[in-house]
């Protein structure tokens, strides 16, 4: 009897030891997740707490699926993600290739390259808002002084220009994520296959296209997976620079969600959107992760 109890205790030990972690996870992750899922099925308003118990099934989802404003924000988010990530990849690759060629001062440049990552996105947003201001902004001032234009270009007011400005700020801030990961890839790259390709008849562009780039792609996919999560929740930059304006033309999913949830107090509906946004992020990450796994399969032979 006593022995049976002791054995049982020994078996229980791992679970007992893990209990604090499990409890924390449940409380911090699972509970809010379940709670927000529940609220997305109610007409929950922060100002009317009783609405939390009014179960309305999928009416929130049906409503946002029928809402053109939501779809616009949804598609704009995907477009923003695609453009920003590709631009960052292209620029980051260029920077990494250049820095890889440098023999003197490489460490210093590597550090400088990462400066943009040290700033809070809010500060970056304010800075670019100032740069692009149509009256006192540095950009317009410079363009006018150089005589390239005599008008005040409405960088943050015109819908297309505003999206361009936001993308530029995002790219400025995060290109170094790609640059640093791709540079790591270049450092890890074996030299022999490059030489073999040169002997095999490749010109420098072909060496890059057929050997260097395929080798770097796993590193790019890591950066893309990280960045797709980042960009998909890009709220601060947009909130500071345009707050989704003018007239909702730079509205991304998260600014729309914040507006719906806090300004309009429709928390239930906002949570429904947030769930869709989360699924979108997961899909992007999963996509890049799968590509990463596929690309890594051959890396065992890269010595």
């Amino acid at each position, binding site marked *: 009897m006593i022995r049976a109890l002791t054995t049982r205790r020994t078996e229980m030990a791992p679970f007992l030891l893990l209990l604090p972690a499990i409890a924390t996870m449940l409380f911090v992750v699972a509970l809010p997740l379940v709670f927000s899922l529940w609220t997305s099925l109610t007409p929950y308003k922060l100002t009317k707490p009783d609405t939390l118990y009014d179960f309305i099934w999928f009416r929130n989802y049906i409503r946002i699926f029928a809402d053109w404003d939501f779809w616009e924000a949804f598609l704009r988010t995907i477009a923003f993600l695609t453009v920003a990530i590709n631009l960052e990849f292209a620029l980051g690759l260029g920077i990494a290739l250049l820095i890889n060629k440098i023999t003197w001062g490489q460490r210093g440049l590597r550090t400088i390259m990462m400066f943009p990552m040290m700033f809070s996105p809010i500060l970056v947003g304010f800075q670019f808002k100032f740069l692009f201001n149509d009256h006192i902004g540095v950009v317009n001032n410079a363009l006018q002084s150089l005589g390239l234009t005599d008008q005040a270009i409405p960088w943050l007011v015109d819908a297309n220009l505003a999206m361009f400005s936001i993308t530029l700020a995002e790219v400025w801030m995060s290109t170094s994520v790609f640059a640093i990961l791709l540079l790591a890839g270049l450092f890890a790259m074996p030299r022999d296959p490059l*030489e073999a390709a*040169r002997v*095999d008849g490749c010109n420098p562009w072909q060496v890059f296209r057929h050997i260097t780039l395929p080798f770097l792609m796993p590193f790019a996919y890591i950066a893309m997976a990280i960045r797709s999560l980042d960009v998909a929740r890009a709220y601060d930059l947009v909130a500071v620079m345009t707050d989704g304006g003018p007239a909702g033309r730079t509205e991304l999913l998260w600014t729309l969600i914040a507006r719906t949830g806090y300004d309009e107090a429709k928390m239930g509906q906002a949570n429904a959107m947030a769930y869709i946004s989360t699924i979108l992020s997961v899909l992007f990450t999963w996509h890049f992760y799968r590509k990463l796994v596929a690309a890594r399969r051959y890396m*065992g032979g890269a010595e």
Partner: protein
Amino acid sequence: MAEITLEKVVKKYGAVGVVHGIDLSIAHQEFVVLVGPSGCGKSTTLRMIAGLEDITGGLVKIGGQVVNDLPPRKRNISMVFQNYALYPHMNVRDNLGFGLKIAGQSAPEIAKRVAEAADILGLAPLLDRTPAELSGGQRQRVAMGRAIVRNPDAFLFDEPLSNLDAKLRGQMRAEIKKLHQKVKTTVVYVTHDQVEAMTLADRIVVMKDGHIEQVGTPMEVFNHPLSTFVATFIGSPPMNLLPGLIEGSTVRLADGTGVPVPDRLKQFVRDGMAVQLGIRPDDISPVGHGLSQDGPGAEVALTVDLAEPLGMESLIYTRLAGQEVQAKLYGPRIVQPGEVLTFRLALDRAHLFDAATGKSVRAQ
């Protein structure tokens, strides 16, 4: 036709010279092995022929054309690297066909030539694997296949076997030799392994410190080494070198032992000359257990310090003229340390080197 000619080729990294003006001409379809210890400049020389290193001075010609300023892709050569240098993201088929694809060959032509090369090297069952899924020997074969599909003017091998284990190295060595017999092409092969050099080469080029020490067929280099460096580098175990003085027609060794100067070398020595007597372990054997029993020789009684039985022969460590020498006993006889045996020195195959310069007295 693709003979390769080096004229006064120099390679310097900054002020440091690595290759000091070497001259070499390699005939069409010849298999030439550059051999030497690490840092002797053999790989650098090969890489200059390939175009992977700039040439500081002199001329490199392939097929009569000066290629100094041509990039590797315009030299029509193939190279096999020590680390195989396969393209990790391509399967074996694409690795083999890559050069042809870059050259703009049609898909059916590529498929045909890849199939031929795969056939020659026994790679057919592996064509869909990636390099990560291959063993070392298989990777080496793919690297060789990649070199032959392109039908180049010359093959360059940069220590291709040094990453393989001993058994596989022997097999691949034989395969390379067979390959050269099948695909008659000029080959320049770099190695630090004198066995590879001896077995593969039409001609061996022994290099040391950026200079060529000796060029010749394997047997020439083995039988008539021009310096103590070549004498000890080629042949295993290395040739024994014993310091001595010429007294008339005798070589007086350090402890006073006198050994007659071999007849064929008499004309090259003069009285009072400080020399080193070179004699291979194969030429010091207990009487009745040597390679040959006739011809001029000298007999001495020596004490066995250590014996390493190798089956049908034993390597014996003993002392001659106060110096450790290695000797060979042919036959299955087991020798015990401390045994005193009469050894016969086969002097017709002995060598004399000038003690001051290290050069063979014949080369003076």
